[in-house]
């Protein structure tokens, strides 16, 4: 779908775009710097009936809404792998109830992605939702938050809706919106103890956030502090030549040599130590650089649409420019075709040729590194999202 959709650009235009993006520094059609995101507007809590919701509009007019709904569900006792260590754990539970094992299951999260104009079983849509849920579930930490007790858990339904036509590959938009919605999500406060049937506080205002706020540390001192303090974000990165470009627009993606979806998460260990010294919550304009403790969750290559673009033909072999004007017999035609093939394999300056072959390892490594580095793009994005009012 969106990544492979055809862009209405002529080979010449593609060649031009490719050339300008290959410059050092690259010149992007909308004048952004390579690491600059498109401006966006975000708000949370737009759907009062959900546990958490968010909406983001990109300046190019794409817009997404994400709603998070949670339901209490009975945890099935797993019979599929009665491994030794599990039975040992059960014995432990009998002896000592305080030593409860909090564990989650990937079934506890159900994610649906809707892109207008595409079926929900379209390969692209499925791939998008797989990438988004992979990022969420990769480290196994997220589902632990949904654990209520040995017998019950929250089942989380993430409904991700693109509400504008897919003007560009919507992955970053959807990921950021999901991130915000999860940040804003709250679950009713548990009142019962132990493995009883859960009972919840009827006061919504008392419901704790799925991702507890640093400022609320005092009130939730006993809460188990799982590693990731924020939901993951998935960034779309592309490379043209050796240039690495973030948040590509549709046209830019059409000439990408490589496109990667990089998911990063944040582990709380460093941030908690920095924020605990400061009484106020993190502000975007704090002077000291307090970097996010980022870690890589997953990397996926995305088939760039550039591979399906029609190639340009050098003037030399273009009949419109008089080449092979007289050739008429079949013998010549065959020769001509062979010639065209060799012409394609050679790069001709100013003539568009779809990229071939895999990405270079070095470029890929640089792309990932650029995402993760302190003060890098992911840092910036997370900081920016901090500024969104979550109430």
């Amino acid at each position, binding site marked *: 779908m969106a990544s492979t959709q055809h862009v209405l650009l002529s080979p010449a235009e593609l060649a031009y775009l490719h050339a300008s993006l290959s410059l050092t520094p690259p010149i992007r059609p909308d004048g952004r710097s390579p690491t600059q995101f498109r401006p966006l507007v975000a708000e949370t809590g737009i759907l009062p009936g959900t546990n958490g919701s968010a909406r983001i509009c990109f300046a190019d007019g794409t817009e997404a809404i994400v709603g998070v709904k949670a339901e209490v569900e009975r945890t099935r006792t797993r019979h599929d792998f009665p491994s030794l260590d599990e039975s040992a754990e059960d014995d432990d539970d009998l002896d000592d109830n305080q030593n409860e094992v909090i564990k989650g299951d990937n079934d506890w999260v159900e994610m649906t992605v809707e892109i207008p104009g595409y079926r929900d079983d379209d390969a692209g849509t499925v791939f998008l939702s797989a990438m988004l849920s992979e990022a969420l579930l990769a480290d196994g930490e997220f589902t632990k938050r949904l654990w209520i007790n040995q017998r019950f858990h929250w089942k989380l339904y993430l409904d991700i809706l693109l509400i504008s036509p897919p003007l560009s590959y919507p992955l970053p938009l959807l990921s950021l919106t999901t991130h915000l919605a999860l940040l804003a999500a709250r679950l009713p406060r548990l009142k019962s103890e132990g493995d*009883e*049937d*859960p009972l919840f506080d009827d*006061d*919504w*205002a008392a*419901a704790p956030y799925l991702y507890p706020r640093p400022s609320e540390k005092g009130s939730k001192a006993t809460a188990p502090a799982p590693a990731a303090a924020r939901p993951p974000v998935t960034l779309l990165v592309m490379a043209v030549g050796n240039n690495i470009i973030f948040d590509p627009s549709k046209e830019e993606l059409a000439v990408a040599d490589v496109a990667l979806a990089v998911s990063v998460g944040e582990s709380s260990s460093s941030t908690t130590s920095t924020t605990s010294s400061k009484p106020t919550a993190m502000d975007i304009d704090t002077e000291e650089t307090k970097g996010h403790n980022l870690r890589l969750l997953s990397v996926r290559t995305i088939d760039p649409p550039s591979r399906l673009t029609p190639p340009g033909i050098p003037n030399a072999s273009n009949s419109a420019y008089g080449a092979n004007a007289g050739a008429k017999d079949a013998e010549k035609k065959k020769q001509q075709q062979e010639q065209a093939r060799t012409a394609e394999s050679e790069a001709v300056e100013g003539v568009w040729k779809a990229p071939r072959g895999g990405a270079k390892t070095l470029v890929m490594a640089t792309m990932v590194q650029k995402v993760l580095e302190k003060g890098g793009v992911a840092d910036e994005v997370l900081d920016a999202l901090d500024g969104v009012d979550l109430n």
Partner: protein
Amino acid sequence: MASLKRSFESDPFAQNISSKVYVRSTKSGKVQKIVREVYLRQDIPCSSKLCNACLKIAPRDAANRPIPFVLSEKPAGTSVFTQGHYIVPDTNAFLSAMDLFEQSSAFYDVIVLQVVLEEVRARSLPLYNRLVSLTKSEDKRFYVFFNEFRLETYVTREENESVNDRNDRAVRKAVKWYNEHLSKTSKKAPAVVMLSNDRDNLRKAKEDDIPAYSLANYVSQLKDGEQLLDMIPELEERDALIEKKPGQFLYPEHYTLSKMNTGVKNGLLHQGIFNVSPYNYLEGSIRVPAFPKALLILGRENINRAVDGDLVVVEVLPKDQWKQPSTQVIEEEAVTMNENPTEEGSDLISEKERKVLQEEAKRTLAKTTEGHALPTAKVVGVIKRNWRQYVGHIDQSSVSSSAAQGRKQDSVFVIPMDKKIPKIRLRTRQVAELLGKRILVTIDAWDRTSRHPTGHFVRSLGELETKAAETEALLLEYDVQYRPFPKTVLDCLPKEGHDWKVPASMDDPGWRDRQDLRDLLICSIDPIGCQDIDDALHARALPNGNFEVGVHIADVSHFVKPNNAMDTEASIRGTTVYLVDKRIDMLPMLLGTDLCSLKPYVERYAFSVIWEMNSNADIVGSRFTKSVIKSREAFSYEQAQLRIDDASQQDELTNSIRTLLELSKKLKQKRLDAGALSLSSPEIKVHMESETSDPIDVKTKEHLPTMSLVEEFMLLANTSVAAKIYEAFPQTAILRRHAAPPKTNFDELANQLRVKKGLDLSVESSRALADSLDLCVDPKEPFFNTLIRIMATRCMMSAEYFCSGTQSYPEFRHYGLASEIYTHFTSPIRRYADLVAHRQLAAAIEYEAVHPAVRSRGRLEAVCKNINVRHRNAQLAGRASIAYYVGQALRGKATEEDGFVMKIFSNGFVVLVPKFGIESLIRLRDLAEPEPAATYDAETYTLTTSGSREVKVELFQKVRVRVTDQKDETTGKRGVKMELVSTY
């Protein structure tokens, strides 16, 4: 990008819109976040007649008339608010002292806030219904103010505020607003006073400068406050328990609700209705689905503050604590006689109780080896209290001598009439007045620290043993609705009143689809003096040699339309209750005894079932129709019998009764062949002096063939109708079933018969049971068979109404009548189920459209549940009334009668005297003074006494007893007392 969220700054109506967000947990375990938008308005009137501003803006009804305001312009004053005042009670004021608000001496001009009304509804439905009826009463001037929708009085929940606190704040805000609002109307505006029994709420009101009083404080400002003071429970303190030392707790703590729910779901705990044994107040039982037999709950600590009828959760005790059911009679009064109500002993179990229990333990210890022990359990929590108002009287011995004179508040015990209810501790100032009276009390609470529940006084019914007080006590005890019919119900009656007639013109809509059966020779046969004649019969020979037999039932459904006030009232009452001297009608008199009643010589609407039968009483064909009939005669059973027996009477009517009698005998034989049981319960009749209606004599009822004549045809009609409505409404037909009793129910009786008489009781089917009951005869003792039938009847399940969709067809069976399907159709004047059956039958024969009320399964199930309870209560009330009158009839007389031993304990036995239909317990200590020693052999059901008196009492033994009347000190009832004269 424009925000999608509602922006409150830009919206001109923003202040009128608010939202409520809360978490709702459903029964099925779902947890939902609920968002409700609240649209606030400013035109909700204060409803004070003083206020003109509100009158102008108040919404009008459809005819553009203003809705009349409720609160008086000159409300009553108190010693503090001389200018007059309106009352705003908070939720717990209503919950704890609803009786107070129903007083006619005070509590007028009350503002019931919406938030309070909703809270009352959530906490207690019966109290809510009483409150709603108060708001509807015109003279009490209760006004429901929708504070949650009025802009000025709406409050949003603050962070970390509990719902209760928020609602309390809403009440205070409403009071404040009312005060400010009314002060604008005039200078001497009435004050608006908050009443609360919650200390916290009162304190906060004081901080905000809102006039607020506790109930006790407020009542003491009233003129005759003294009397009302007793009706107020003590001030509630939420943290009262914490202050007490843990050592003072007498009872184990109840589990939390979630813990109980989890346990019940896991099958570790069991939930059921707690029942107390009528013979032993320390023994309870609970039936739970997981066990075939009821679980025993023994001792105060295990009963853990459960009261008979509560829905409780129990935990089964380990096997080494399993016990046998008690063979001893333990009455609370005898054991806890001299307790002091003011000082709470620190021991849960008093010395005397302990002694009784120990004896019990000794006995069971010897027996446990034999494997008779039953599983025992302990109560770990109460899901729902089933407390109601209890009738009782003050225990004379609990009154200190000073209290009997003074007016100071004193604690006394009230002994409820129902022996299954524990003593209730009551604080009252009017001990002297209340002594020797029947009083109504309620239970307020039962703390862990208190041995007995605490309650408060509601009202006095009158002197003990006066007819009025005892009858009312009886009606209250069995929850019989005995208040006169309200105006709304009487409005549903035909306007013509007693002058109503079947329309002369056949074109009248009343005649639509009605068959004219006025030319048939129809007559009714009923007990003497019967006014509500439900049924009439006819029979005539057909040219083909068969007979046409008709059963005509009063067409009540013509007069009582579904869902009007009269129908609702009837469905609540469920049945007419017959007491010895009084009848509490289900329908207003006009219908019951006149318009519906199939009186002789007048035309009446009827619903007829007409069969064609051959001479063998086999049904050839049947049909159902609405009709108009004219009964030729209303016979009593005796008259009809005389007429049949008199050979000189050869008129057509008499002959048709003879035909009916012949057919009915054949029908009965068929029924018995199919295995119908002939059961017995002691039936007696109290003869009254006609003028004073004082009972003068007691007689057992005679049985006449004409009675079974009527009975057989009614059974046939019921069965035919049941089949018809089931065919038309397989899911929603209202039917009656009598479940086959579990075999274990008969275990005890079968064992007793085997041991004592060498008789076998086979219980495989109703037929086998009927046959073996027939064989249970003692040639020397004709009554023995009846005695066994009485005892067998008590082993059975009670029949019940149900909605056909709730059971599978084989479960429809009526065990006692040996009928596959059965319903009640023949007494619509006195039973609501019959009325529903009439409507269903009318719809089934396409006489009228199916009303949603008779089609909705949920509604019908609720109706069935209610009438099953009402039916049972009506029976119990009727029996209790007979027992009371038997006591009265025997007053001052002492007679010697023959009796039979029905039940035997290690310290007493129960004797049934057939002549009076009464049974009574004779304790060992009644035999002689001092109490003779006794040995009880449970194997042979023999009690042998020695010492001061030597007798040997066996089960089923015929004994001679002296029957005298005696006032039972424990219940304050006059009843019979029996003394053993001799054994045969």
